[in-house]
Every structure is written in C-alpha cells, then in structure tokens.
C-alpha cells in the first residue's frame, strides 16, 4: 500500500461489468437498456417525421433527404434493429414477469431466439425495401433521392 497516497480511501468496489465473462443473459439485459436509451432518439425521429408530414412539402423534403442520406440510413436501420430487439426482448421480460422462462437454460435459449429474431427482422425490412415491396401505402410516384 506504500504506492497509494490515501490507503484508507481505497474502498472495495462491488464487481462491475468488466470483471465478468459475458453470459448471454447478461448481454441481452445490457442490450435491452442500451437499445431502450437509443430508441429515445428514435422516438424523436418519429415525431420529427410526423411534424414534417404535417408541415408542408419543403419540410417533408428536408426530412426525406436526411432520411435517405447514408448517415440517415445508418440511423434508421439502427433504430429498426433496436426497436425489433427491444420489442422481442420486451416480450421475454413480460414472460419473466409472469414467472415463465426463468430456468438458466430457458433464459439462454430465449436470449438467442431474441437476437436471431431481431437480426432476421432487419434483414426482412432490408429485403422489403430492396425488392420494392416497402412503400405499399404510397402510389409510388413519390420524390426519389
């Protein structure tokens, strides 16, 4: 303790994230919080989108250009994944609240299912957009680019 200036102040720390290996239940729990916090930004984008639709063609066009830009696409796909993940994992949490799926093996399996479903959802959304199926509520003469 000779190298520490205030040995009396070196309090023991409770173990935090960095000292554990990452079991799937821990990773999914942290990701649930992280996606929840991130989705607050997604909520702001939804409100921005609604406001842009209501506020006239110029505002909508600004939103459209931002959304179609590479940075916008990165964020929108990010939000899509975060929403899908938080959605599926939220159902997992609701099941836990009713007492289902608490066994370690069950929690591991449902965790992997949630991760797989969230990635499949984003892939599905990408496919719907890529193959021109998305936008089915439009007459498909909207502004491009």
């Amino acid at each position, binding site marked *: 303790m000779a190298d520490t200036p205030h040995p009396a102040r070196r309090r023991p720390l409770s173990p935090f994230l960095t000292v554990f290996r990452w079991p799937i239940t821990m990773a999914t729990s942290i990701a649930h*919080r992280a996606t929840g*916090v991130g989705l607050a930004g997604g*909520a702001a984008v939804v409100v921005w989108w*609604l406001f842009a*639709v209501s506020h006239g063609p110029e505002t909508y066009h600004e939103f459209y250009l931002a959304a179609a830009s590479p940075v916008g696409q990165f964020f929108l796909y990010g939000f899509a994944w975060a929403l899908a993940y938080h*959605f599926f994992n939220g159902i997992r949490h609701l099941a836990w609240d009713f007492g289902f799926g608490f066994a370690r093996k069950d929690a591991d399996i449902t965790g992997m299912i949630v991760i797989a479903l969230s990635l499949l959802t984003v892939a599905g959304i990408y496919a719907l*957009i890529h193959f021109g199926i998305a936008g089915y*509520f*439009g007459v*498909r003469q909207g502004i491009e680019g």
Partner: protein
Amino acid sequence: MSMETPLRKVRGMGSAHTGASHFIYQRVTAAALVPLTLWFAVSVIGLVGVGEVDAMMFLSLPMHAILMGLFVLTLLYHLALGLQEVIIDYVPHQIFKFLLIFAVYGFAVIAAFFCLFALASIAIA
C-alpha cells in the same frame, strides 16, 4: 412505526412510496406497445419512400391518426419511465439526477405536443 432514523427522516431521502406504480406503468405501457408497435411497423414500412401527399393521406384517416397518436403517447410515457430508471441507477448526484429526470419528462411532453399538433394539422388539412 417508522423504521427510519431521525437523521434519515430529516434528510428526506427515504422511500418515495411510488416505486410500485412506476413498475406497474412500465409493464402496462410495454404490454400496450406490443400490438401498437406491430401496427406502427406495418404502417411505416408501407410509407418508406412515399411522397408527402401519400403520407398525409394515410395519416388523415381517423383510425390511423388515433393509432399513431396512441402509439407515440404510450411510447413517450414508456420511454420517460425507462430513462428515469436508468438515470436513477447511474447518476448518484442528487441535483444532476433531478435535472436529468426533469429533462426527460420535459422532452416527452414537448414531443407529445408536436405529435398531437402534427396529427391535428393533418386531420384538418
């Protein structure tokens, strides 16, 4: 009979007696958001890349406007409850913690205002 020491009472940092309602509202809004999010996803994927007129047409239908309003308001409430929980867990400083929670609820109220304003504008346009 209170189990708190006099010092604890004077500092006013005991239980706020509102934890259970926070927990319950978090779950109730989560359950409500399951069908609402499915509806939102189907709607928003159907509006990818469409023009402003198409988006307005979609949101001018009362059913769509009401569901969108319900989705966003429930989402904002769920979001504020969740961020409050995260802030309480990670921000030890009392005043900073209070200001952050205040900012979260302020954001939710302002976002709700803009959402309802937009939906009302579209409805009467």
